[in-house]
Structure formats: structure tokens, C-alpha cells
């Protein structure tokens, strides 16, 4: 049936096209139709500006559309003024364009593989009722968040700062699910597949694995709630993997299959993508069965920060000025955020906001009082509980992963 794929895709696109009817029109307002487009970082490739638009997918608020198919939409920076990212504003990222709507009533999650002695299936209600629920706040950040700011540029989705979000996830511990499957002694990795897939059969399906130790971590869950609600379709309904601390490539959406493996998963998404040069980043968490001499799988999120206030580069003298933002890392927790007003020569500690847990965004703020007229070269630098902090410039790597350079804001007080 040659037309099946394309009809489905066009249908999906059509459904996206209807999104600005009643529920979304008000929220989108003029922005979605503005000819000048969303605010974009000047460090992005110039071509991003020709196609990036504020657009709302069904069930979502207007986000910065980078690609329609597969859908890749990032959150505008203003979204991060809140420490918890609302579901409707949470970024959307797909690799492959065949995206099924999953019906929770008929959905089944299969647990199996050669390393499972007792394969079985879980339904939606079963998952919610028969496994002890776990709840925590965690950052979901694309490995390539800020790729578009990389120097030199790296090919791929040219993300600005918004391919991330922070939500309260609720779900069942993966280790409780795996315990029921009777893991054999030689299990090395746990692999995950979702309902989305490629348009042509020869494209490798997006399947990812975790090392057994991370899969058995009590904080690794199969999440069915996000901020107290079912997951939005475009964020993985009805259930997705939450591997807190690790980049979002492992957070498989629309989970359909979990496989216990005694051999390393050998596919493009493990061996060819989502890898970083060995020893370039100060990662402490290893995925040994997937390591190679030259490169290694990306693992935990690098310590990072973002300035969310002010969002303009000009402020009035005489007004009180507070610099605000968020900081996060791969699950060790943020211990301090320092602010420089002189481009990094001198530093002063910012005040940290409430601690929502070690995987969460941590809000911070720094008051400058009433600064006199002039220019301020504001820099924010976060440090985590194991002493890692942000580099002044991002560490260049072929795929543009882990961009965690200090946050900067050139402010004119006029």
C-alpha cells in the first residue's frame, strides 16, 4: 500500500493545520501569524530565521517551530520564567515522522527480550494501579539543546535554548516492572521502543538502550503523568521513559516495548548517533557496553544555566534591576550560581530559589540595585554538588551536544 505512509503523514499535518481553531487561537494571537517571527538568538544560523515560526501543535501552546515533519518545536525562553514547565509549553522533539496517536484503552507495553525469563504485557490501567507510584521533578533536555549556538555550527536541528523542560513526573519504577520479567544473570542493557517510527522501512526505527545499572536505578520510571495530568500526545502519551539526569534521547516516548538484552544494542541510534568524543566532557556516569575507543554514548546532562530575566538587552537607569534565571545539572544538584557584571572577571553568589529536588531546575536571582547608566556584561555560571561548573565557551564536538557555556547578557542601562 504505497500511499499508506504519506496519507497518514498528510493527515497528521492536516490535523496540525486545524490546531488554531477555538482552543488555540486566543493563546496564539497575532504571534503565530506575525511576519517577523519569534525572537531568535543572533548566534543561530541565518537560515533558521527564514522558517522558524510560533506555531501550536494540537494540544500545545505556540512554540518555536523549527521543523514541521518530523515535528521539532522548542519552548520560547520566556517559558522558563516558571521553574516548572507547563505541559502545553513543553518542547516537542521527534526523529521520525510516522507518529501514531496511541489509544490508551488498547495500548500494551510488552516486556521481553532474551534476558527476560517471564515476558509479559502491561496495559494502561495496570501500569497505574498495580505498581507503586513514584513522583519527582526532573529536567528533560535534548542532547542537542543549543546546537544552533555551536561554533562552528553542526548539522541537525538548530535548537536555541528551549529544547528542554522541567516537569513533575509520576510513574512506575522500571526496576519493579523488570523484576516481574525475571531478569537473567547475563542482562547487559535494557532497550526501549516507542510507537513512532520511520516513513520508509529502511530507516532505522528509533530504539534506545540503557545500561542495566541505570535501568535499575529507583529513579528511572515509566511515566504516565506529567505535572499531574496524562502526558500530552506530543510528549509521549500514554507512557514514556523518564531517565532523570540523563539527556532526553533515552526518554523514549509512546513506549511499546522494553527488552532485556544480553548483547549491546547495535543500531544507528546507539552506535552512530548521540555519541561524544571520549574525555571531552566531565561525565561521571558510564555506559560501558556501548563505549568505543574514540567516542562514547552521551549520558548525564552537563551543569548549565539560563538567564530568564530581563529578556531585553536594554533597561532604564533608576529602576531596580534583578537578574533571574535557572540552573540544572545531571542529578547531583546545583550548589551555587555566580554572577559577574564584568564579563567574568569578578563573581558574586546569586540567591538560590526553592530546592525541588536534585534533578530539577533551580531558580536563582541576583539584585543589582539601581545600576547607573552604562554597559553591563552579565555572566551567570552554575556549579553542581560535585564541583563541576560551566565553561566560558562551549566544548566543540561533531554533533553539537552538551552546549553548556555560561549564560551571558549584554545589558545597556540607559
Amino acid at each position, binding site marked *: 500500500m504505497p500511499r499508506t505512509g504519506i496519507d497518514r503523514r498528510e493527515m497528521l499535518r492536516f490535523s496540525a493545520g486545524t490546531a488554531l*481553531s477555538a482552543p488555540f487561537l486566543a493563546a496564539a494571537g497575532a504571534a503565530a501569524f506575525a511576519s517577523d517571527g519569534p525572537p531568535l538568538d543572533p548566534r543561530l*544560523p541565518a537560515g533558521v530565521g527564514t522558517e522558524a515560526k510560533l506555531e501550536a501543535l494540537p494540544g500545545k501552546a505556540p512554540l518555536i517551530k523549527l521543523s514541521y515533519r518530523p515535528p521539532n518545536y522548542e519552548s520560547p525562553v520566556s517559558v522558563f520564567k516558571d521553574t516548572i514547565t507547563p505541559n502545553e509549553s513543553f518542547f516537542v522533539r521527534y526523529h521520525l515522522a510516522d*507518529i501514531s496517536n496511541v489509544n490508551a484503552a488498547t495500548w500494551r507495553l510488552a516486556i521481553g527480550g532474551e534476558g527476560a525469563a517471564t515476558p509479559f504485557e502491561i496495559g494502561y490501567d495496570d501500569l497505574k494501579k498495580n505498581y507503586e507510584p513514584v513522583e519527582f521533578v526532573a529536567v528533560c533536555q535534548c542532547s542537542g539543546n543549543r546546537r544552533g549556538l555551536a561554533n*562552528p555550527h553542526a548539522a541537525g536541528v538548530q535548537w536555541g535554548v528551549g529544547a528542554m523542560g522541567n516537569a513533575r513526573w509520576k510513574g512506575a519504577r522500571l526496576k519493579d516492572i523488570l523484576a516481574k520479567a525475571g531478569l537473567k544473570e547475563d542482562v547487559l542493557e535494557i532497550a526501549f521502543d516507542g510507537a513512532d517510527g520511520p516513513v520508509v522501512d529502511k530507516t532505522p526505527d528509533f530504539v534506545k538502550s540503557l545500561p542495566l545499572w541505570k535501568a535499575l536505578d529507583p529513579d528511572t520510571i515509566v511515566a504516565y503523568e506529567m505535572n499531574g495530568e496524562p502526558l500530552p500526545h506530543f510528549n509521549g502519551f500514554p507512557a514514556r521513559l523518564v531517565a532523570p539526569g540523563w539527556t532526553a534521547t533515552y526518554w523514549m516516548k509512546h513506549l511499546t516495548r522494553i527488552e532485556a538484552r544480553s548483547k549491546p544494542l547495535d543500531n544507528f541510534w546507539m552506535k552512530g548517533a548521540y555519541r561524544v568524543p571520549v574525555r571531552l566532557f566531565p561525565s561521571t556516569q558510564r555506559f560501558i557496553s556501548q563505549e568505543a575507543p574514540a567516542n562514547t554514548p552521551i549520558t548525564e546532562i552537563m551543569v548549565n544555566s539560563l538567564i530568564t530575566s530581563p529578556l531585553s538587552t536594554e533597561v532604564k537607569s533608576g529602576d531596580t534591576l534583578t537578574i533571574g534565571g535557572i540552573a540544572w545539572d545531571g542529578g547531583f544538584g546545583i550548589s551555587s550560581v555566580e554572577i559577574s557584571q564584568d564579563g567574568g572577571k569578578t563573581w558574586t553568589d546569586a540567591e538560590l530559589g526553592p530546592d525541588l529536588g536534585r534533578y530539577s531546575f533551580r531558580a536563582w536571582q541576583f539584585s543589582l540595585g539601581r545600576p547607573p547608566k552604562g554597559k553591563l556584561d552579565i555572566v551567570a555560571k552554575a556549579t553542581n554538588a560535585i564541583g563541576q561548573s560551566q565553561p566560558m565557551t562551549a566544548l566543540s564536538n561533531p554533533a553539537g551536544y552538551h552546549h553548556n557555556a555560561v549564560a551571558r547578557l549584554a545589558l545597556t542601562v540607559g
Partner: protein
Amino acid sequence: MIKRNSSTPDVKPSSSVNFTAGHLAYAFAVMLTAALFWGVAAARADETDIVLKEGHGRDAVINNCGACHSLDYIQMNSPFLDKAGWEGEVTKMIKSYGAPIDDADAKEIAAYLSANYGK
């Protein structure tokens, strides 16, 4: 009015897909008809609004690249790849992503991209 829950079936297609310009035109016609049927404002942007620069090889890009992804990927990734960079991207699509692009089209696509969207 929003048909999204019923518009995409739950079953994944298992057959391989051989795209041609005709298929794309057909799909576009389906979408346009659907849009008119539901009275949807045609003003909203979607991927049919994406316009690539005129030039030799543009049809090969639309027919091949456009089968698997929207063409905004091209503008987004410009202008920072040189000729070797765009050739590398086309090769990646064929070798890593299994794109069914023949050699002649692959050459034409890489030449078009580096001429129009290269650095």
C-alpha cells in the same frame, strides 16, 4: 471539528514507500480538499508554504528529501555547510537513514544544496 484522534490510525504501516512527485501532489490535493471540506483557514502556515530557491536539482530535493522530512530542515541548516558538508549530509541520509536515493539524484541534490544553501 478537530479529527486528530481518528485521523491517524494506531497501526504502523509495514510496507515500504516509493515516493514520487505524483504522490506528493496527490497528498497535497488530499490535504487541500480536506482543508476546504472542514472550512479551515488556509492562512495558517504549514510545510506546503516552504519555498526553496529556484535552481537545477530543486525537484530532486523535493521528491527525495521531502518524502521523509519537511524541507525547512534545509534552510535551518544554512548557510554553514560547504560542498563537502552537504555531500556528507546526503550520504548520511542514504547510508544511515536508508533514504532510497539513486546516485544521479544524490549528486544533483548535493550540488543544488551547496550552490543554494552552502557557505
